[in-house]
């Protein structure tokens, strides 16, 4: 589905990503974990093209994603949905308009088609009764579910999540994770940057552990958690789990 080869990204003197390679197959749920500042967001953002890597290539279905090839690149990016930590809903629009906007403007759907799709997805995330609400009148968990629905409206083949529950109050984390779990069940390919180890272990199929801009471990979830190989991963896990 997506293949990252020898990716490098520097911010000035800082090497945020040093030679990262990664392949994600269709239907996989990859949890990207690691200490803060290890380059998780940068990697995810490079995959979607929000950051331009300094070196390396990204392939989607074995085709190079090349920003120079504008039309193709645009189309390739549209196969990916992105969910942000801080939701980034459009505050001046209702929930329904948030979902409709890109469908009508980018995909050229009619207002009716778009609305039909939007309501379908709002139902899927359990928020159809909020269609006329403004984002600022929603709870954090509701906002994130709307943001997920908004991304899904574009019919992506793959979803990228950057700490989708990190800005939420504890009691709202689960409702968002449930939506993501449901997506996974329906076969969505996902890369999830998360600190929710329970989710990574139970829902995720694979863990990629990043530290200082490098992939230190890449293993099936269960194996990673029960038997981490590297000292850095062991150290990280010992810090994350409170005993």
């Amino acid at each position, binding site marked *: 589905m997506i293949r990252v080869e020898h990716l490098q990204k520097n911010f000035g003197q800082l090497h945020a990503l040093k030679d990262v390679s990664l392949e994600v197959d269709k239907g996989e749920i990859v949890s990207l974990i690691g200490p803060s500042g290890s380059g998780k967001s940068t990697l995810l953002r490079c995959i979607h093209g929000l950051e331009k890597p300094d070196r390396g290539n990204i392939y989607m279905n074995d085709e190079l994603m090349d920003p120079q090839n504008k039309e193709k690149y645009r189309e390739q990016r*549209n196969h*990916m949905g*992105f969910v*942000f930590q801080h939701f980034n809903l459009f*505050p001046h629009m209702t929930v329904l308009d948030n979902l409709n*906007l890109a469908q009508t403007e980018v*995909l050229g759907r009619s207002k009716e088609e778009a609305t039909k799709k939007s309501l379908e997805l709002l139902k899927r995330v359990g928020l159809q009764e909020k269609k006329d609400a403004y984002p*600022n009148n929603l709870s954090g968990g509701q906002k994130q579910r709307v943001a997920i629905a908004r991304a899904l409206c574009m019919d992506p083949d793959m979803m990228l999540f950057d700490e989708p529950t990190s800005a939420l109050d504890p009691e709202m984390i689960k409702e968002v994770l449930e939506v993501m779990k449901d997506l996974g069940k329906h076969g969505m390919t996902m890369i999830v940057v998360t600190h929710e180890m329970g989710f990574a272990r139970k829902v995720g199929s694979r863990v990629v552990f990043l530290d200082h801009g490098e992939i230190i471990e890449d293993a099936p979830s269960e194996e990673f958690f029960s038997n981490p190989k590297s000292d850095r991963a062991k150290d990280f896990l010992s810090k994350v789990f409170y005993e």
Partner: protein
Amino acid sequence: MFVALDKVFTMENVLYLGKGALISLGMAILSLLIGLVLGVLGASAKRSRFFILRAIGNFYVEIIRGTPMLLQILMLFSVVPSIYTAITGNVLRINVYLIGVIAMSINSGAYSTELIRSGINGVDKGQWEACETLGLSSWQTMKLVILPQAFKLIVPPVISEFITLIKDSSLTSCIGAIELLKASQVLGARYYDAMSPYTLAAIFYLIMTISISYIGKHVEKRLAASD
């Protein structure tokens, strides 16, 4: 002080000042609107990816903000006729109100440039990114997502720019525009009492500025409704 208040305070004179006030208001409105158009252009230039456009934008803003408006009015007043004569060979019968509006518009445009630019910058960067991940073009993003939000941020400073323009339109009295201030001076000279017409002029200014400020507050409140 108010030696001729009873003579000054007649219907005819109040109407005369009222006409001056309308001229001040008219010039301010026109300059504000033209200035906003210039401001959109200026802000676009300053945000452009082309160095030359950014340089022009910066140059415009710095020159205008760094010199007195009175000087700008006087310069335009003296330079326009000579350019006209140089090009057409004829002598220009100059319309001071037009010169006033042009000068004030150019001036206001520089302030609007900054105000629109900071309004756009004031919108959360995450909004751009969300649009990018949804496949919206930068123009669609600007039009549908950024500007509507920037608008809210821009309204309050635009209101105060409007009030500034009403007051600063008095500067055009120096090139002979008979706006509110000049009108009060005309009456002052006629009755050998400056204070009475000045006071009336002040009242007219305050009626205009306070009403605008009041309407502005109302608009702000309405705009804040979705927050």
